């Protein structure tokens, strides 16, 4: 699982807004963990994939923001090759904790939706740390 990101923050009146573009290369079918070697078994209807940015700020000890999600139905290609993706959702902080924040962790996780039964949440085995710069930028055409 690999992600490459470039990012900058734009000033908004009350809270920081982060802009991230990313690539995702993922092979959901063959997880490193032997138990999840075959995720799409007979009882799996779909996977709900989501990319979460997790970070700490002075105001909040833990923040998690879902930047992007995708529904992968049984039968879809389990390999993801996404390049230059923009975040689906606005990356607003609750305050001004993005500027200069060196440690934003991006993780890919998924919710297994069965035909019937338990609904587990699984976190992918790769994650990437992203630093935000110390200054705001005038937003480029986004």
């Amino acid at each position, binding site marked *: 699982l690999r992600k490459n990101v470039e990012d900058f923050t734009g000033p908004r009146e009350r809270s920081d807004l982060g802009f991230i573009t990313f690539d995702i290369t993922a092979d959901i079918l063959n997880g490193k963990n032997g138990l999840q070697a075959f995720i799409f078994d007979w009882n799996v*209807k*779909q996977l*709900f994939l*989501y990319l*979460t940015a*997790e970070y700490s700020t002075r*105001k*909040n*000890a*833990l*923040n*998690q*923001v*879902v930047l992007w*999600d995708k*529904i992968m*139905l049984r039968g879809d290609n389990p390999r993801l090759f996404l390049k230059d993706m923009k975040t689906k*959702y606005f990356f607003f902080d*609750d305050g001004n904790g993005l500027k200069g924040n060196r440690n934003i962790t991006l993780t890919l*996780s998924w*919710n297994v*939706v*069965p*035909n*019937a*039964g*338990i*609904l587990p*949440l699984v976190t992918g085995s790769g994650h990437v740390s992203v630093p935000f710069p110390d200054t705001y930028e005038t937003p480029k055409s986004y």
Partner: protein
Amino acid sequence: CPAAMDLFGDLRRMNKRQLYYQVLNFAMIVSSALMIWKGLIVITGSESPIVVVLSGSMEPAFHRGDLLFLTNFHDDPIRAGEIVVFKVEGRDIPIVHRVIKIHERENGNIKFLTKGDNNEVDDRGLYKEGQNWLEKKDVVGRARGFLPYVGMVTIIMNDYPKFKYALLAVMGAYVLLKRES
């Protein structure tokens, strides 16, 4: 003749006793069901451990009529990606959506935002006037498991009350008339 009168008297008395017996049986079944429900509330920590999905806002994962099993343990942290069932203050209807943003303070205070998978926008439009975030107290439970279609019965009973009464009448008649061998 007195023998025949005695026989009829016996029959009438026996039927009354049998009727009371059936009613008690029925009351026991209802009480047991209620006890199981209360037990589930205690075990799961949720005021409503089983809910029916009412809208299509979480398709294609959940459809109207699916049944969800919830837990609401106090120490379970709310994290992005989880499916929660919550109630907006002042409204009775539980909503089943996914958590897409959380901001948690060091003391454990958490505020979070939800969105239905099938909706274009987040749930801020559904919250109370001026409310931008949900808190732990709004949560009825976290979806841990689900069964498709099974909840359709409750939806049909809600939309067609005549069906509900018919069903109750049939159940009542069955229990009262069933003979114990």
